[in-house]
Every structure is written in structure tokens, then in C-alpha cells.
């Protein structure tokens, strides 16, 4: 993307006059447009090719979550230090009125990227909870004042290049301010439907009995989604009380019964999770993504019982859908941390 593409993101404004310009924008709109907002949604990213995609994402989000969106493109490595800003609005029709969310876009380069906290603090819509989606690698130095202000921190562990280090940082952020910040991993949102589908596989009383005796798990995941598959295994391990055994040789889990649970991950092109196979004795429990279609086919095969394949909604893949799913949640993800802790040595 050329610089011109960033310039086209909205109306250029002086940073010190953003609030005044926004007020003017809404006064000029008169009664035809209503500004709405119930969260401050801050997106921090360092990839300049993502400006338009993220602006579109805000437009998609705004139809369901009216917000003040603050997009921050930071380029800490740039030789020039500069800070620029633009404003724009995303409107959609609701009845006879247009409901609008406002977006402020910042482009920070060089040293000005260190001014991130002041940029965020200066432009929040007061009283509304700030939600920060961090789309860049986490910095090792934690700015406590910034992070302790965030009500909800969203990230995507599937993008982590150094998962153990990133998780350690997340853990520290989560502990700031008496652990007030809600952590929202889009990777966890990504496997929500998969988790529901897996739970469904064991709904039947006969199947439920096999759950505590699982022997092997095989998961096919898309390239770059190993963490997604591990999170899924971590979820099962934490819920079923399995303990990861020392990583000498091939890792496995030890069930409370003392049985070993083996697992294999295979990289396959396709959706983030395309296939999960669970074996317990002579029974197979299979969840398979139907190519090109947005559903799973779930099959239980046990000797002596008839197969009843079922069709189940599969997971979300688009970033806007994942973020909407995360924003639609009001509370903490009770099992997420436990799932992550269960597979931490494997990351």
C-alpha cells in the first residue's frame, strides 16, 4: 500500500483538534445521523497494508457494536518521527435514522510510537470501556499505565511468532490492576463452535462413558494454526484433568485413571481445524469439516451401533466475525487460561 492509501482513510485533522473536529462533524450531520457508541475499540497494528482492511473491519463491526474506533498504525522502525490523524464515520440505516460510529486513525512513525499511551488516553470516549485489539507482536516491556487501563485485551494467539514469550507477557498483563483486564484470545473464539461440536459428539450416554477413556486424538489444522489445535487439546486436557507428561520423547497426557492419552497434530491446508478424530477402545468419534461449506460432519462409529452422521455449524474464520464473537461476550473466559496452562510446554 502506498502512503496515499493511508491518506484516503478519512478527513485529515490536527491531532490536537480531533475532538473539536468530531463535534463539528456531528453538528454538520444534523438530525439525519446519530452518533452511537458503547465501547472504545482500539486497534494497534504495525503493518501498513492493513489500514484499509482494518477500516473495513470497523465498518463491519459498527453495524452490531456501535463504538468509537481508534486505529493506530505504528511504525517504530521508521526513520522519520511523525504523527498524523484522520477521522471518518461508519453509518448504517436503522429504521429511518442513520446510526454512526466514529473512527480516528493515527499513523505514528519513529519515536512518536512511544507516545502510544498518551494517544490512547487522549482520545477515548469517556466512561465507555476501552477494548484494545493488539495486532502486533507484544513488546517485552510492559507499559503498566497503558495496560492497566484496558478493560478487555483482544489478541490472536494463532499469530504469535514466539508463543511462550507472548503468553508470558499476556499473563503479566492479565495480573495488572488486580487482574481487572479481561483477556480475549480470538484463537479461543475461533474454536468455540469446534468445542461445542466435540462436546456434542459425547452427548449420548454411551459416548459419554467413552470420554473418560479416550486413548488417541488426531487433529488436522491449517498451516499456522498449530496453536489453535493445541488450544483445543488444552481445553480437553484441562476439563478432563489430564496432565502433560515430561517432554522426553513423544509427549502424551496422563488421565486421572492413569491411562495414557496420545495425540497427533497434522498440518493440512483448509480451515483452521479441519478434522478431529478421537479414539476410545473400539469407538471412533470424528468431526470433519466439509470442504467449501461452513459446517462439520460429526460421526460416531462403535461396534454394534449404527452410525448417525450429523451436520453441525463450524467455526468462524473471518477476523470481523471473530471479533464480533469476542465483543458479544460480557464475561471472562473461565476455561481459557486453564486450557493454555495445560499445553504451555508444547507452545
Amino acid at each position: 500500500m502506498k502512503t496515499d492509501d493511508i491518506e484516503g482513510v478519512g478527513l485529515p485533522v490536527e491531532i490536537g483538534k480531533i475532538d473539536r473536529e468530531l463535534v463539528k462533524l456531528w453538528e454538520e450531520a444534523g438530525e439525519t445521523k446519530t452518533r452511537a457508541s458503547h465501547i472504545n475499540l482500539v486497534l494497534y497494528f504495525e503493518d501498513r497494508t492493513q489500514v484499509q482492511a482494518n477500516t473495513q473491519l470497523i465498518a463491519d463491526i459498527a453495524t452490531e457494536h456501535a463504538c468509537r474506533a481508534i486505529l493506530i498504525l505504528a511504525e517504530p522502525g521508521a526513520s522519520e518521527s511523525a504523527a498524523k490523524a484522520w477521522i471518518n464515520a461508519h453509518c448504517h440505516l436503522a429504521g429511518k435514522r442513520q446510526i454512526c460510529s466514529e473512527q480516528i486513525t493515527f499513523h505514528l512513525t519513529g519515536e512518536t510510537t512511544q507516545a502510544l499511551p498518551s494517544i490512547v488516553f487522549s482520545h477515548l470516549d469517556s466512561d465507555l470501556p476501552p477494548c484494545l485489539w493488539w495486532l502486533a507482536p507484544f513488546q517485552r516491556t510492559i507499559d503498566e499505565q497503558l495496560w492497566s487501563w484496558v478493560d478487555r485485551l483482544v489478541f490472536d494467539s494463532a499469530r504469535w511468532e514466539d508463543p511462550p514469550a507472548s503468553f508470558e507477557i499476556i499473563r503479566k498483563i492479565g495480573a495488572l490492576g488486580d487482574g481487572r483486564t479481561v483477556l480475549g484470545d480470538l484463537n479461543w473464539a475461533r474454536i468455540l463452535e469446534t468445542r461445542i461440536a466435540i462436546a456434542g459428539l459425547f452427548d449420548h450416554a454411551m459416548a459419554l462413558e467413552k470420554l473418560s477413556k479416550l486413548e488417541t486424538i488426531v487433529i488436522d489444522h491449517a498451516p499456522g494454526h498449530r496453536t489453535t489445535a493445541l488450544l483445543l487439546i488444552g481445553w480437553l486436557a484441562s476439563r478432563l484433568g489430564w496432565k502433560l507428561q515430561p517432554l522426553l520423547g513423544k509427549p502424551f497426557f496422563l488421565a486421572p485413571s492413569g491411562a495414557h492419552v496420545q495425540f497427533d497434530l497434522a498440518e493440512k491446508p483448509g480451515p483452521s481445524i479441519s478434522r478431529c478424530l478421537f479414539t476410545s477402545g473400539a469407538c471412533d468419534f470424528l468431526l470433519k469439516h466439509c470442504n467449501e461449506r461452513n459446517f462439520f460432519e460429526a460421526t460416531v462409529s462403535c461396534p454394534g451401533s449404527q452410525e448417525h452422521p450429523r451436520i453441525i455449524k463450524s467455526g468462524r474464520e473471518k477476523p470481523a466475525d471473530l471479533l464480533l464473537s469476542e465483543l458479544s461476550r460480557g464475561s471472562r473466559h473461565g476455561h481459557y487460561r486453564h486450557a493454555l496452562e495445560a499445553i504451555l510446554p508444547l507452545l
Partner: protein
Amino acid sequence: MNRAVPEPCTVVIFGATGDLTHRKLVPALYNLAVEGALPQSVNVVGFARRDKTDEIFREELGEATRRYSRQSVNEELWTSFSDSIFYHRSAFDEAAGYASLAKRLDALDAERGTRGNRLFYLAAAPDQFQVILENLRESGLNVAPSGGWARVIVEKPFGTDLDSARALNALVEGSFPESETYRIDHYLGKETAQNLMVLRFANAIFEHLWNGRYIHHVQITASEPLGVEGRAGYYEKSGALRDMVQNHLLQLLCLTAMEPPAGLDADSIRDEKVKVLRSLRPLTSETVRTSVVRAQYGAGAINGKRVAAYRDEENVNPESVTETYVALQINIDNWRWAGVPFFVRVGKRLPKAATEIAIHFKGAPPVLFNATADLPTDNVLVIRIQPDEGISLRMSAKVPGAAVRVEPVKMDFHYGTSFGKAPPEAYERLLLDAMSGDPTLFARRDEVEEAWKFIDQIRNAWESDAADLAVYSAGSWGPTEADDLLARHDATWRRL
């Protein structure tokens, strides 16, 4: 309730070539003229030392008004208005200058029908007040010609401590009676500050909740991203406590905390404000240490630009211990406010320009929807003094959808959009009130002295122990010590 009509008069501004005259006073008078709020005959006479003609003075003020007026300048109206502006050259200590001023005012009265009414505006540096007031008295200008009135408007600071405030009050009293003395605190002229009383006493729903039974604490904030901006000479001596807390913020606290006045006349309201000041819990060196945080900004960034530390600003002592930030807990020992802390904070080089009062109500019991809430659920009523004057109420609401999910939302009232026009500048209202003889929005002598009495306790404690100056980065919301102050009361500063 209609306002009093201002009478024809001459406004004499001492310090006519200064910033206040150019940025605030003359643009305010022009806006009043445009809106037809001024009487037909009003003269503005600038009194200053520099040599210049009426024409040059008018030109300079014209430029300033075009730049600083809240509404765009209509050249025809400006020309007509500026015909009533005059310049009088004299040093403040030049007796002959006052004698010639008296003659000139008499002539203007005769020519333009201003009836001998004079409003003297002390917009000069405080150290000039004494000489101006004494010369006004010596020249007899402090006494209006028969049938007219002579009033004085005194700009803050009203002293630098209780002793100097008493001395200044005695000095003013030597020339003008208290009834003709108008101590200006422009915060009181702001529409939202005035609306505080309307909100409290014209609406049935709030007053019942306005006490320690329902209110957890109150936060009063005045923040600005600006640094000292060339005012280091003044600021080094005053600091945030004297510059802002003694006057503006304690006035806002009084309006928030006072009992309903017996009437809407000036003295009934000011009596109630004084009662609040007298109920402030006295501070000791020990309580100053635990309930007052003073800090100074270090280097940082504002709006993406690097800014210097206070000690590196021009004309600031590199070892200065002047506070650019103060956060304090104030307790009001009366029936209504027992157990309700008022947290006041003021600072320079903070991320946003905002002045507001936030009433934090006690939370609902931690059951049902509040049993597992992650987001704040306490109701907060915010009165925004500036900018974007208005009122908002934060409450919890169910997010539409099948799940029961509760999130904070806010109901917001903006003056600008609800009334279709921006509220007038504070100086417009205050000048008009002074011309009309209504002192309600001006500080009375005892208010000023009671406020200093409280502030002096803090200054004295600081002077006996200079070690507790915290440092915060420019562009942050202040030092962590200020967060700790609220944390002790299970509260956090509002995220503005």
C-alpha cells in the same frame, strides 16, 4: 427568572494591552454587543503604559477579536462597536494619568450618555493592584458621580495565602465597598457551573440522592495538555494548588456540596458556599502526607509530540519543586457529606483538556446481574464544565441479544446540540452581571479567605517537608501515588 438589565456604563480596563483583554474581555464585549445584550451606551477605555492612539488600539483589538471570538466577526458590527473603544495612556503609578482619566470619563459620560457609571477591571498583574486601587481612590474615581455607580472587578489570584488575601481585601475595601467589589472566577461564569444549581434544585430526582447515603465519592477534575506556556514566572510562584485548587476547584466543590440556598439572591447562595468551606475537615501535616499528592511533569509526549520536563521549560528553576499536578482528598464534615470523600485533581501536561464533576453513586449489591460483573456497574453522573459542556449519566444496560449481558452505557446531554447553539463564554456572562450589579457569580471576601485558610494548611505542610514531590510523564494521567489515593477507598480515577 429574567436577568437584570445592564445599565449604560464605561468599562475601564487596567492592563489593556495584555493577553486577557485581547483574548477574553474585548471578544466577550463584542459578542454581547452582537447579541444586543449591551445597553446602547457602553464605552470601553483601555488604560496602559504604552503609547498608542485610539485607532491603533481598536485595530489591535479588532485583530484579536477576529482570532478569539467564539463567533465570526461581522465587520460592520465591529466598526460600530469599536467606535466606543478608547485608549488612555498612563503608567499605573502616575497620578496625573488618573486625573486625566477622570476628566475623560466625565467627557464620555456627557457625550455618550453613560451616566457616570464606571466598571474598573483590574486585568493587570496582581502586584499592580495596590497602586491602581490607591490611585483610583486618590483621584476620586472610586466614588461615582451622583446617581451613578463605581465598581471594581478583581482578577484572580486573590492573594497568595490567607494573609495576603486579607491584605488585598483590606486594600480593595479601602477604595470600594464589598457590595461594589466583584472578584472574578471565570469558572463560575461557565454555563454548566451555573447549571449545577438548576440540576440539583430544579429536578426532583437528584436532590434525594445527593448525600452520603447514596453517593460513594465525588471526583472533580481539571486537566489540560498545556505546559506553562511562557507563564513560568507566575507559575513558579503559584503552582497548581494556588493557581487552580484555591479558586476554581473549590468553587466547583462548593456548588456541588452546598445546601439549598434560601433564595437565588447573591448572598443566600454565597452564604451556603461559605458554609461548605467552613465544614472542610482541617488538615494536619500528617493528613496532608496521606491525602494530598503533589507532582511535577517529566518529559513525555502530548498528541504524539515530545515535550520537555517542567524543570527544562524556559525560565523554570532546574531544581524547581513547584507542583504542576495536585490530587487531594477532601472531607466535608457535615450531615450531608459525612463519609463521602471528594477527590480533586488538577494537572498540566495531562492527555486531555477537561474540567468536570463526577458524582459516583454507590454500587448496587453484588447479587443478580452484579454478581460477576467485570465492567463497572456504578452509576456516575458527570457534569462537564468544559469543553463540550453537558451532563451524562452512566448506567448499566442489557446488550440486545439472547444472552443476558450487562454493559455500561451513557445518556448524554450536550449543550451545543440540545439547544442548537454553543453556550456563551464565561466572561460574557460575568461582564454582563457586573454591569447589572449582580454579584452572584463572583466570590465574596469570606469565601476567598476561607478557601485560603484551607489551602494554607497544605502549603505549610509542604514547606516543612519538601521531599514528597512525585514525577509523572507528560501525557500520562498523573503519578501512581494519585491512583493509590483512590485505591484506598476502593475507587479509581475516571478515564476521561
